[in-house]
């Protein structure tokens, strides 16, 4: 193994390059070692570690929507999908993984992404870990993103430990509440109308829903968040109406995105990330080119701060902030700050003003968001159908990511495995809907419904109850390195006991066992003096 081109030893090293200087040292950590150091100047793309490539690695891209799965390192050539940044900000044929890789009992991974983007490429028979500082220049020494190499007998164990180390490095404080909610998206998509909202609000009291979240649909344009589409009341009235019915108002927005047709882009064409001096298209969606806000620009940050301040004032308590990767794409910004540092700056502004509310990240770079979101989507969108060609959007592949990225949960944030679609008029079979709900429950992530609530039968309501009953434990995917799409998931100490769930995403079969070793009658009584009494066993 070579680090910065040198043989590993326990000493302090420094590199003086014509563009930058870098000091680094190796420290022992639990089950492995870390490489830490400081850099200044214009480091660009720096090689950190080079090692022989194992045959197969668990690997994946940088953000919520990137697939995370077992890959063959031989003959692996990275294929950029329709949206380039859905997988990585540094696409190349050699690209293997962002942030970390895992193989039998080993994790090689970076603990932070504050300034640089950390990633792995395959070069011949070797895997090379890089830090890319893009074009940014650092006058003073800044810490490099620490790298760890960890080894243990069990791959899930080492992934969990790695995840905890990222949490510590980024000072993650897990939020107290993990809300249950409803989202409009997977029933209504962008066709949501105000009467649908009112009708579902009437029904929502029959479900254990706390957050009622309006998804992409209500807005006039991407970036013009204050203006609602014809047929919708104002954002204030939307929040008020939800609150009046006893729910926490939740709203979707893509705060770092502005569309080519938006007023904000027309008024402030200089607020966006550029390429060769011209606005750079971050991605295409809604039939439009979408640009990324330049979060190194103070004016933009002020606008962002006002936006979230106002939304909070209107009463919103839950934000699903989407397409966040836009804030971190490479390109020309107002200052020489790195795209990652800009992204974090934007996220910090949101957290500062809206931190009292629940912040759910989506389409978000993972490691830079640690400590800045309460919940995180860890998959591509689910869908009202099971399978798709080329691992494109579908329930099956969304759920696979929910399984393979299980170890982030409750360490970095609450994992969001995406909404449950429980109604029986979709193209999902009964077994497929059950699998999605039971896996999501066992893995203990966020549970959001996304159905016309009138359509849910007794069976489907019971399935929701079951999913909630088997949540609350400490989950583990025992065979996370298996690429057969058949997973063995356990959870210790769920609300109903220890859970053992074997699920086959290919055949849509599953076997759920919940042991009886927790069953005991319990009656809770609150005394006049405020003390809690619990009467267990036989009560007379």
């Amino acid at each position, binding site marked *: 193994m070579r680090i910065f081109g040198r043989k590993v030893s326990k000493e302090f090293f420094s590199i003086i390059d014509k563009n930058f200087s870098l000091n680094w040292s190796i420290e022992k950590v639990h089950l492995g070692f870390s490489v830490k150091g400081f850099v200044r100047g214009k480091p660009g793309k720096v090689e950190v570690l080079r090692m022989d490539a194992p045959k197969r690695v668990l690997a994946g891209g940088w953000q919520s929507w990137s697939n995370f799965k077992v890959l063959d390192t031989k003959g692996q050539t990275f294929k950029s999908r329709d949206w380039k940044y859905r997988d990585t900000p540094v696409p190349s044929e050699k690209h293997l993984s962002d942030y970390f890789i895992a193989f039998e009992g080993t994790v090689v991974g970076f603990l932070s992404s504050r300034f640089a983007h950390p990633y792995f490429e395959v070069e011949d028979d070797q895997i090379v870990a890089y830090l890319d500082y893009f074009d940014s220049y650092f006058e003073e020494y800044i810490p490099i993103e620490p790298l760890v190499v960890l080894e243990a007998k069990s791959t899930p164990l080492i992934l969990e430990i790695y995840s905890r180390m990222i949490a510590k490095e980024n000072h993650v404080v897990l939020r107290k509440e993990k809300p249950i909610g409803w989202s409009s998206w997977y029933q209504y998509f962008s066709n949501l109308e105000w009467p649908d909202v009112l009708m579902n609000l009437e029904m929502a009291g029959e479900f254990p829903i706390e957050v009622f979240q309006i998804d992409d649909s209500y807005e006039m344009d991407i970036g013009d968040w204050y203006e609602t589409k014809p047929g919708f009341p104002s954002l204030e009235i939307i929040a008020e109406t939800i609150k009046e019915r006893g729910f926490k108002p939740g709203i979707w927005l893509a705060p770092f995105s502005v569309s080519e047709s938006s007023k904000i882009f027309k008024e402030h064409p200089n607020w966006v990330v550029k390429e060769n001096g011209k606005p750079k298209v971050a991605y295409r969606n809604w039939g439009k080119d979408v640009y990324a806000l330049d979060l190194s620009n103070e004016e933009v940050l002020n606008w962002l701060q006002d936006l979230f301040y106002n939304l909070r004032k209107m009463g919103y308590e839950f934000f699903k902030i989407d397409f966040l990767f836009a804030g971190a794409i490479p390109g020309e910004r107002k200052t020489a700050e790195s795209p990652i540092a800009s992204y974090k700056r934007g996220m910090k502004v949101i957290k500062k003003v809206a931190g009292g509310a629940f912040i759910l990240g989506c389409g978000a770079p993972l490691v830079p968001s640690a400590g800045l979101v309460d919940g995180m989507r860890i998959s591509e969108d689910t869908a009202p159908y099971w399978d798709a060609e080329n691992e494109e959007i579908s329930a099956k592949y969304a759920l696979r990511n929910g399984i393979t990225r299980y170890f982030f949960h409750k360490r970095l944030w609450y994992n969001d495995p995406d909404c449950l679609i429980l109604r029986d008029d979709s193209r999902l079979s009964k077994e497929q809907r059950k699998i999605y709900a039971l896996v999501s429950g066992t893995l203990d992530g966020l549970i959001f419904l996304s159905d016309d609530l009138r359509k849910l039968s007794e069976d489907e309501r019971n399935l929701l109850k079951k999913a909630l009953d088997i949540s609350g434990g400490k989950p583990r995917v025992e065979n996370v390195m298996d690429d057969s799409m058949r997973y063995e998931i356990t959870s210790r100490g769920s609300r109903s006991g220890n859970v053992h769930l074997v699920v086959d995403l290919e055949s849509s079969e599953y076997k759920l066992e919940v042991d*009886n070793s927790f069953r005991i009658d319990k009656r809770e009584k609150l005394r006049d003096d405020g003390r809690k009494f619990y009467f267990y066993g036989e009560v007379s």
Partner: protein
Amino acid sequence: MQELRFNPITGEWVIVSTATQRRPVRPSNVECPICPGGMEFPDVESYDIVVFENRYPSLLRNPPEVESNGIFKKKRAFGVCEVIVYTKDHNSSLSRMPLGQIEKLIRVWKDRTRDLYSLDFVKYVFIFENRGKEVGASLSHPHGQIYAFPFVPKRIEAKVEAMRKWYEENESCPVCDVLKNEDGERTVYENDSFIALVPFYARFPYEVHIYPKRHISTILELSEDEESDLARSIKTVVMKYDKLFDQEFPYMMMLFQSPLKEDVDHFFHFHIEFNPPKRDKDKIKWMASVETGTWTFINPVAPEEAARRLREVKV
């Protein structure tokens, strides 16, 4: 006053809790406060197992605000203190209780562990029983207690660190390694899933540890069969204790589970410690200067000899 104070000389937290039992309490004609009809259960005719929040807890769900001042660091005394009444029978004990009742008690322990760890401020759940006036137990009615701490207490931290170190050096858990190397000389009792022994490193003369043979880190992992094996192990140990000197043997029984919110389960092996203060029928092994001041214990009875005596007590 209810607060946590930090000792920068030892790096430990101290709970300052001056809540005293001066408040008037509704009088009751049942003398024992935790018997049915007693002070805590005035309107209850009977119960099976009850857990209730301590009347004068040292840790609170809603503790008063505190202000630190430089080196005089304080924290709010978040936490929960609970009492577990094992049975309605005042004169019972873990040695006399039916096995089924102890199995039920284990399920209650599980439920409390899960419940208390679900509170965001709880970092460690400590289940214990003080039995006998020698260890400060004022009530003879069989009961234990639970402290849900807002920090990982010092001795737990010491255990975590020692087990972590062993694991890093040996790629295995130290308790698993002890079990691999015990030859029976120190064994007091054994069944399919548990072993009760006077450990090689016993600090008290008749100290007994109960270790699960399978590497588990919390009681949440116990299967139904293991629950009944654990119940039998606990009952047998306490029965042997009671017959050793033909008297209700005082002890501190403590459950050591891993701090559930940390990722230490791979090297933390769940265990129960019985720390009895008696060195002989009428002699107490006091926690005096050496023990308290230096954390060094002088054990006047060879663990192998203590194990032989306890093994030979037929129950």
